[in-house]
């Protein structure tokens, strides 16, 4: 069954195998969703993507925004205007949106507003593993935290209701292991959207000049008190089983705890916290006081642990609280059944039944001979050509700040064209900083979607402060890394409407860049010439390296029955110089001991290797040899 159908059909009681993220999308629709906004980012992307797929059948408005801050403003305003709204982002997206987030709580909302933050313990696909539970605390914003896809759906609905009850936004925090777990999810009834948008003026609430902010802050503090009362009674904060040992946990860790207790044959009462902000203080105090000892099992920061200690101190409860502070668990990386088993066993001074050390030894032994398989740029990826050209044009004598997208994979050999990376859009700002202090070419790379996300202010800064940065916009006409979402340059909206795309070159010229050139990276010599020109240009320069994503292009050709003509190496002509392998390193290039070869199944037919081959040994496969 099609995901659009699963999300929008009103079939309560029906069970489907859903990704945690799809379950959240369904939950929002069941709650009568009216507007959703997002900027894609793993592990959150499939929430927006499934809402995008179902937008024709659905009764809501959906948009991919330029960045998370805009998405927060879009959804926040809609909720102020009485429309149930959802805004979705990955954990670091909330950093981008934090300016809006930190004041949205002061004004509150009229209809429900749910903010999804998908955290990534273990950095599966992120530049850091920050713990966004602290954002709930920082922003005095209620937070729910599901442990599995079913709960993710139910909590999304609950979050909307909670948000409306207190007229405050609610954070729904998920982690990779919830977002990307697929499990059977039982559907519930779909509520009809209210469809009663209405902007009721109330400037002394909604216009946060200092005098209003000062009035709103105590109101916010009062709301947190009310939310604490709700948390005390919340069915999401539940105690399972009995025992003199207490375990406090939340999210996916709950599953690991249950499994560990069974394996270790330990009886314990488990306090599963589903509402992680504000915490049910009294209930926690009562729980801790009634136990001989308490173990706290949570990923990343000792958030629950520190609160448990502070709450206990207030009531002079002396129950030992064991967790990260004694080193039983680490605040680095995600938890696993093994880590939880080991931590609990250690805290209780028990033996662990499985011999993990023996497994480790075996594992390392078997790994020695298994070559690694890191993710790489696809065969025929235009980014590879661009970075080859930048490296050749500048003789690798520059510094090469990079940005967030597939092209970050140019960090790997043989390209090794990534020197500095902070966050989305950072390559232009970091390029400015480097040009200010270094006397060498600074060539920053940024993707098309990232350029719109947060690259433009950096570019304005370069012009304004006269930094002679050289910015290569690697434009593959999609947000490839997160699953090929559209962006402002493509003109396709979240409602599936094709509008006019925004031209990167016009933006660059518009902000005052004097040198703007569009290249086709698959034409190597011309591109190298253009990059050299840009580097020797006196002032900031922008090169737009434009060629569609190889995956999208391959799919298009297949769809339109356009042939893909792969290349081949003529072994008689090949001198074995390995330029195609050691300088370009296309995923389709193979070394056969004496000469190079090309995997014709993988080859996209881009022809870049043929152009750089010093012996002209690479050519298109002859028609009669084509399969």
């Amino acid at each position, binding site marked *: 069954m099609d995901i659009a159908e699963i999300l929008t059909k009103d079939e309560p009681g029906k*069970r489907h*195998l859903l990704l945690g993220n799809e379950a959240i999308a369904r939950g929002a629709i069941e709650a009568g969703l009216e507007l959703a906004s997002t900027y894609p980012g*793993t*592990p959150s992307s499939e929430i927006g993507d499934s809402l995008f797929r179902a937008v024709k059948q659905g009764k809501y408005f959906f948009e991919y925004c330029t960045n998370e801050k805009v998405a927060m403003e879009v959804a926040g305003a809609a909720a102020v205007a009485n429309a149930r709204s959802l805004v979705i982002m990955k954990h670091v997206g909330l950093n981008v949106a934090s300016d809006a987030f930190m004041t949205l709580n002061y004004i509150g909302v009229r209809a429900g507003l749910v903010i999804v933050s998908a955290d990534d313990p273990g950095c*599966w*696909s992120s530049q850091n593993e920050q713990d966004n539970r602290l954002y709930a605390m920082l922003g005095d914003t209620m937070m729910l935290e599901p442990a*599995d896809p079913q709960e993710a759906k139910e909590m999304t609905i609950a979050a909307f209701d909670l948000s409306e009850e207190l007229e405050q936004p609610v954070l729904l925090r998920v982690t990779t*292991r919830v977002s*990307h*777990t*697929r*499990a*059977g999810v039982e559907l519930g009834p779909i509520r009809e959207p209210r469809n009663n948008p209405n902007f009721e003026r109330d400037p002394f609430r909604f216009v946060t000049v200092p005098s209003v902010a000062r009035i709103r802050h105590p109101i916010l503090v009062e709301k947190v008190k009310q939310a604490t009362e709700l948390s005390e009674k919340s069915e999401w904060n539940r105690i399972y089983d009995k025992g003199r040992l207490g375990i406090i946990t939340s999210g*996916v860790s709950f*599953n*690991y705890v*249950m*499994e560990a207790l*069974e*394996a270790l044959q330990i009886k314990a009462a488990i306090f599963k916290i589903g509402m992680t902000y504000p915490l049910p203080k009294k209930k926690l105090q009562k729980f801790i006081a009634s136990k001989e000892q308490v173990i706290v099992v949570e990923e990343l920061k000792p958030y629950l642990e520190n609160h448990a200690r502070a709450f206990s101190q207030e009531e002079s409860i002396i129950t030992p609280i064991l967790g990260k502070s004694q080193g039983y668990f680490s605040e680095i990386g995600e938890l*696993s*059944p*093994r880590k939880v*088993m080991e931590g609990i066993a250690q805290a209780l001074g028990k033996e662990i*039944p*499985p011999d*993990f050390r023996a*497994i480790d030894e*075996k*594992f390392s*032994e*078997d*790994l020695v*001979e*298994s*070559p*690694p*398989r*890191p*993710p*790489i*740029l*696809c065969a025929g990826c235009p980014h590879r050509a661009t970075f080859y050209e930048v490296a050749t044009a500048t003789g690798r004598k520059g510094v090469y700040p990079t940005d967030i997208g*597939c092209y970050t*994979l140019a960090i790997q050999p043989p390209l090794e064209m990534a020197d500095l990376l902070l966050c989305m859009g950072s390559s232009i700002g970091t390029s400015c900083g480097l040009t200010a202090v270094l006397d060498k070419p600074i060539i920053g790379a940024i993707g098309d979607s990232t350029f719109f996300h947060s690259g433009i202010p950096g570019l304005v800064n370069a012009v304004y402060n006269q930094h002679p940065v050289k910015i290569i916009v690697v434009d593959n006409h999609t947000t490839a890394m997160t699953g090929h979402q559209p962006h402002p340059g493509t003109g396709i909206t979240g409602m599936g409407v094709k509008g006019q795309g925004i031209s990167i070159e016009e933006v660059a010229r518009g902000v005052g860049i004097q040198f703007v050139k569009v290249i086709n990276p698959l034409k190597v010599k011309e591109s190298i010439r253009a990059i050299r020109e840009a580097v020797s240009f006196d002032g900031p320069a922008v090169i737009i390296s434009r060629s569609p994503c190889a*995956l999208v292009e391959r799919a298009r050709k297949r769809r339109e029955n356009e042939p893909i003509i792969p290349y081949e190496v003529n072994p008689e002509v090949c001198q074995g110089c390995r330029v195609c*392998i*050691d300088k370009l*390193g296309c*995923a389709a*290039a*193979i*070394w056969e*001991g004496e000469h190079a070869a090309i*995997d014709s199944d993988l080859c996209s037919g881009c022809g870049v290797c043929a152009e750089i081959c010093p012996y002209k040994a690479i050519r298109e496969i002859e028609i009669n040899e084509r399969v």
Partner: protein
Amino acid sequence: MSSQCYPRSLGVSKIIYDDPFNIVIAGVGGQGNVLSSRLIADAAITKGFIAAIGETYGAAQRGGSVMSHIRISKHDVGPLIPLHSAHLLLGFEPIEALRVGARYLNPSSVAIVNMHPVYPVEVLTGQLKYPSIDEVERRLKTLCSRLFTLDAVELAEQAGNPLVMNTVMVGALAGVDLMPIKTLMLEKEIAKIRRLKEVNQKAFNLGVNAIKTNL
């Protein structure tokens, strides 16, 4: 974690499966790993089980190592299989099977491995060597109670398209008949695939037979 990780025969007709029953799939991005795990879990859910799949992706489209954990249970279970606790390993690629097998197999588990290699970049470029297939097989054997090997790519080609290798492997999984879900359930799921419908059905049967003739 139960010490016995393999379905225990109780008498002649009744088999009790461990709960949760853990299957791990190891492969390379683009091999259809995610699709196969969904198919197996779908069959389990249709049968009335609760199933959870834990996936590592992100690297999926870019040729990196990909692993899926499938857990079939009567209760709610977490998405990750504890180390050493897979009942079955479905290996789509030899060294990926070895990599994952070393962490998740145990002396009572069973592995089904496609021995058709996909060479990592550094092997293709001549910087590293791919271990000999015999060596991989020897090591895999030491990690489990029984190893079934097949060339699923060749069988997929026989079925009509090398891309349906994953369906051959699901067929092989049905062929060993060690799961709480039976061949028919998986066959029904395969029948739901719209793209390359007949090729997939043929591939599934080739997978089943490849194992049955091996048993």
